[in-house]
């Protein structure tokens, strides 16, 4: 590598914002503005505490139908906390207390009428580290359907095949459906976990840093998959990889110390952020 090339690379570093900008996902329609569908999730003045730690402060955010929404921000800013609030998984931590509303298709998820089982059936989740059950690949994917009372082998077979195809892993596992899911590579396990989430035909899929434990090739596969899935599902994906947010998402929310600093079209966040902190973060000056 020559000196001048090195210098160019350095320049790229400081101007990462614009550099990424060239590969930011572009709006499909002619006007250039991404049109939003029905709101799926609306957070209204939402606050969350872990005991005394005010982890989420006055969050107001709307995620819309069939969009890929990315949540970015430095470590510890509340990304995981927020995405886990959306399906109330955050309540598994006993010291959690919340205030304000989160509406899922118009209904407050903290309302007594809403059971967590019902909410989580509609709002599926993929976790940071692949977490298949210690069961066969087939039983992993069929788990959700069985939990919801589907017993017929024929229907389960169809669900398993459709979900594994949907998660782009059918060809790799179709000959070993009865083998333990732990025999797969990390990237394959994560796609089985995505298939498992698809199998209950959710409305929304939440993903908390789904590729952070994976190698670059598996990461690319999952990113492609996320794009594919957005045709049929609304997706919220947490990432602290900014290139990933830029590549896959339509809208991006920037979280910082428990606040939403900026929420806009992904191209706007990366190409002309309104807030100085957003600009600093997406250009790699901190994080």
């Amino acid at each position, binding site marked *: 590598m020559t000196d001048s090339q090195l210098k160019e690379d350095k320049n790229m570093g400081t101007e990462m914002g614009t550099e990424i900008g060239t590969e930011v996902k572009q709006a499909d329609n002619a006007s250039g503005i991404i049109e939003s569908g029905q709101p799926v999730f609306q957070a209204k003045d939402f606050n969350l505490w872990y005991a005394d730690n005010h982890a989420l402060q006055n969050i107001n955010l709307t995620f819309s139908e069939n969009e890929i929404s990315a949540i970015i921000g430095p470590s510890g800013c509340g990304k995981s906390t927020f995405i886990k609030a959306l*399906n109330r*998984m955050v309540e*598994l931590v*006993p010291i959690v207390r919340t205030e304000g509303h989160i509406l899922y298709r118009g209904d407050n998820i903290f309302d007594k009428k809403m059971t*967590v*089982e*019902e*909410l*989580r*059936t509609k709002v*599926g*989740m993929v*976790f940071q*580290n692949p*977490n*298949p*059950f*210690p069961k066969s690949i087939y039983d992993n994917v069929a*788990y*959700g359907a*069985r*939990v*919801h009372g589907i017993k017929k082998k024929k229907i389960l077979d169809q669900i398993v095949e459709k979900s594994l195809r949907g998660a782009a892993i059918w060809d790799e596992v179709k000959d070993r459906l009865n083998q333990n899911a*732990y025999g797969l590579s990390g990237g394959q396990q994560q796609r089985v*976990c995505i298939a*498992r*989430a698809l199998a*209950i035909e959710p409305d929304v899929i939440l993903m908390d840093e789904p590729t952070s434990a994976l190698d670059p090739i598996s990461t690319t596969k999952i990113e492609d998959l996320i794009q594919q899935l957005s045709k049929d599902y609304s997706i919220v994906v947490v990432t602290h990889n900014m290139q990933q947010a830029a590549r896959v998402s339509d809208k991006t929310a920037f979280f910082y110390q428990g606040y939403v600093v900026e929420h806009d079209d992904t191209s706007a966040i990366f190409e002309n952020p309104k807030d100085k902190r957003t600009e600093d973060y997406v250009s790699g000056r901190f994080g």
Partner: protein
Amino acid sequence: MQLVDKDQVSKSLGGRLIRNNIMKFLFLLCTLVGLVVLVTLIVDTVLDGWNYLTWDFLTSFSSSRPENAGVYGAIIGSIWLMAVTAPVSIILSVGTAMYLEEYAPENRLTDFIKINISNLAGVPSVVFGLLGLTIFVRQLALGNSVLAAGLTLSLMILPVIVVSSQEAIRSVPSTVREASVGMGATKWQTVSRIILPAAIPGIITGIILALSRAIGETAPLVVLGVPVSLLVTPNSALDTFQALPMQIYNWVKMPQEEFQYLTAAGIIILLIILFLMNSVAIYIRNKFSKRY
């Protein structure tokens, strides 16, 4: 500047290696002392009792004449005892462990119960015998029946199974639990379909080890007043019975020398039972233990 003096380093090397070998030898010696004593005991017992392990010995009731005495009543009685102890202790303790690990709210009371269950595991067995005598034998008027003794032994091994089951349940990673409840499964579905199947090898191992402790236990049975000589086997759990460790304990006290050989033969049978139970536990642990 060199802070590490290479000469000094190489000089001290010899001493360090010698000390290392001395410690290795000392630890080996500790192991051998225990092992030699144990092997001597077993060999001595087997030599004493081997010739008395006959078919007649296995099929005869106890008797005051050593040439007629056998362990039939004691073996059948011990089987009855386990038939009560096993289901009672398993249901109560696995249920307790499940509640404490999966359902109980996290508060001081739960912590207090958890700590004291482990403490209970250390209570001497004779204390459980006294408890059983007061509650089951006297107050519930069960007498020295299979049921009273079985309930007493169940209480005795309850904390042991609870603690080992808790450990087995806790070793199922929380990420797997989250995956299940994250799909809309209820707590019970998660427990019954994911957690129990994953924890069951550990739970069963704990159960077998606890039961093998119960089957060899003598002190509580002495306190409960279990008879040492009986010419019938129980027809129901409310009948009185004999037990293998009690039979052995009784023979040890006999004056005639021949009874000492019968004692050895009885011990061999108990050892064989314990050995088999432990083998099953080890087999289950190795065969079914999950990896994550």
